[in-house]
């Protein structure tokens, strides 16, 4: 993977001007809904501070909280598994299915509600190779599963698609009328299709929004009801969670449930906030606790607080770059600003362009319900990318040269004078040559004045 990937993918995205407009406006609409849901809550900023401090504390005592959680979950009759990485997570899921959901003469059927962790682990592909039919039941996830695409947003996985695209996909896979694009009708078709899958499922997998040390419970939030429908009909429930999902006490949910949906979609709360503590009579509940690079991030003092993320997606909706480049331009499970600070931890080389896919405007940090200083971390990752020699050569040497010039006033003064002189006499076609000067593709250069301020000052004030 070319490490200048984001600019190239973003440029390709921008080739379709109207669609870029639509994508930007759709996501901005979500940001506006978020504002309308946030402004009337007088203690919203206090809640952000609380949410941030609770998570800071939890991370500072994470091992003990995980142990407490595990002990309580076991007491509740839940089986707890630990996975150091994605491969182990997938194998554990596979083993649970093999031992608990034996079926004869057909593939085991899994229904899965939205879980970014399983996207991160590429679980679907692994299970399908092992003769397990996986059906994503979140509508957005189902759409992209049909299309064999990764999600472009962590809350709205199919936000890059227009209703016409979904209509086409459903025509192909669900037999809806060709040209049908009414979201109501398409959603109804998915409902009918997925109800069959829910009823037929042997095993249901969910993600985890919050895990509570005090009680050994975990909470899953959905709007569609697909998590509850899946797990309450299947015999086995597997919940995959990253280690960072912990919170100490049940009542801490009162902070996060007021922040999550308001930040995510502008709803006052998700339709279903489901608290799972014990399996139902005769059924099984498993929790897989996954590291996959998270403990490494915990060890990076400048970046550890990215683990506070509650996956609301608000930083994506607010990011002017994300809105105009699309989730796929990040080429990482979690796109947008938060993805740009999580991904370099996983593969600095591959994702070295992501910390630069930002103007450092800081909107992400101000919108974040748990106050992650995202734009500060983007700046810090840039330095690490620079130190690791991952910058494009032209930029690296250009910056070294510029730094030299700017620490020598005489050289700077002379250089500026020569450059301005050249800009004044060179023809517009040359100074605005689009292959040599990317600035000039859509912008004019400023007029080069005869005198710099310094020269004016010397002449008029000294």
């Amino acid at each position: 993977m070319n490490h200048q990937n984001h600019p190239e993918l973003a440029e390709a995205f921008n080739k379709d001007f109207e669609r870029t407009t639509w994508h930007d406006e759709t996501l901005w609409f979500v940001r506006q809904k978020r504002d309308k849901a946030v402004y009337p809550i007088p203690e919203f900023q206090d809640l952000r501070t609380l949410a941030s401090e609770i998570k800071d504390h939890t991370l500072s005592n994470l091992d003990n909280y995980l142990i407490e959680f595990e002990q309580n979950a076991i007491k509740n009759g839940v089986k707890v598994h630990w996975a150091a990485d994605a491969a182990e997570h997938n194998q554990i899921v596979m083993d649970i299915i093999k031992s608990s959901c034996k079926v004869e003469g057909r593939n085991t059927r899994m229904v899965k509600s939205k879980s970014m962790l399983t996207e991160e682990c590429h679980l679907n592909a692994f299970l399908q190779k092992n003769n397990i039919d996986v059906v994503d039941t979140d509508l957005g996830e189902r759409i992209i599963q049909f299309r064999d695409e990764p999600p472009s947003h962590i809350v709205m996985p199919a936000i890059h698609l227009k209703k016409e695209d979904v209509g086409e996909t459903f025509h192909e896979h669900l037999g809806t009328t060709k040209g049908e694009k009414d979201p109501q009708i398409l959603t109804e078709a998915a409902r009918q299709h997925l109800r069959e899958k829910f009823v037929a499922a042997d095993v249901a997998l969910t993600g985890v929004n919050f895990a509570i040390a005090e009680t050994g419970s975990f909470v899953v939030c959905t709007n569609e009801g697909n998590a509850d429908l899946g797990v309450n009909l299947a015999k086995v429930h597997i919940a995959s969670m990253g280690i960072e999902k912990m919170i100490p006490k049940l009542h801490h949910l009162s902070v996060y449930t007021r922040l999550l949906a308001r930040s995510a979609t502008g709803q006052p709360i998700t339709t279903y906030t489901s608290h799972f503590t014990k399996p139902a009579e005769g059924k099984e509940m498993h929790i897989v606790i996954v590291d996959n690079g998270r403990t490494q991030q915990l060890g990076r003092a400048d970046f550890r607080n990215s683990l506070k993320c509650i996956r609301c997606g608000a930083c994506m909706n607010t990011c002017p770059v994300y809105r105009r480049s699309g989730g796929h331009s990040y080429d990482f499970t979690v796109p947008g600003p938060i993805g740009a600070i999580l991904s370099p931890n996983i593969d600095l080389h591959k994702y070295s362009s992501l910390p630069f896919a930002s103007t450092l405007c800081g909107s992400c940090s101000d919108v974040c319900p748990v106050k992650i200083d995202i734009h500060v971390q983007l700046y810090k990752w840039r330095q690490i990318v620079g130190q690791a020699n991952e910058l494009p050569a032209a930029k690296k040497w250009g910056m070294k040269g510029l730094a030299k010039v700017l620490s020598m006033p005489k050289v700077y003064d002379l250089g500026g004078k020569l450059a301005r002189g050249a800009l004044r006499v060179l023809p517009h076609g040359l100074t605005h040559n689009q292959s040599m000067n990317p600035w000039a593709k859509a912008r004019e250069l400023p007029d080069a004045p005869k005198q710099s301020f310094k020269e004016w000052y010397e002449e008029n004030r000294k």
Partner: protein
Amino acid sequence: MTSREKILNSIASNKPALTTLPNVPIFEGDGSIERFKTVLEGIGGRVIEVASKADCQAAIDKYYSDLKNVASDIVKANVAVNLDTTKEILEQVDLAVIQGEIGVAENGTIWVPEINMLNRALPFITQHLVLVLDKNNIVANMQQAYNKLENVGSYGVFIAGPSKTADIEQSLVIGAHGARSMMVLIY
């Protein structure tokens, strides 16, 4: 070394110095029926006030006379649902009428513990859902709700309105996988 030990050891060596856990105050707020009603109707639910719990039957007769298969331990039911009810029977339920425990005015959500559900799948698989709620159990916000909630039992859900999705172009569609409509009868 097991992965469990590996992860816990790695956390122990990588975690920052212990910080203090803040106290979460019980924020004040408007816990009125009016606010609860406005908010819940804003997210697609319907709120009907009845004089007493006994009047729920009349409301169900009035609003849901067209629905055939009803499961409930509050009003007259013709589908018996319990822990052992099969998926095939659950799938046929048109209306479930269930007791809700705590209503939250700020977000229109209602706490439904497992013991009220008859079967864990019922509130989700039913085509239409009615929750019955004592007006004295409406609180202002989630701090007050969790404060009132002594424990979450084996399984329990805050339900706020009907099942919904906006996954196609952000167009809101009511009735994704769960209940197509949701009504709250407040007594």
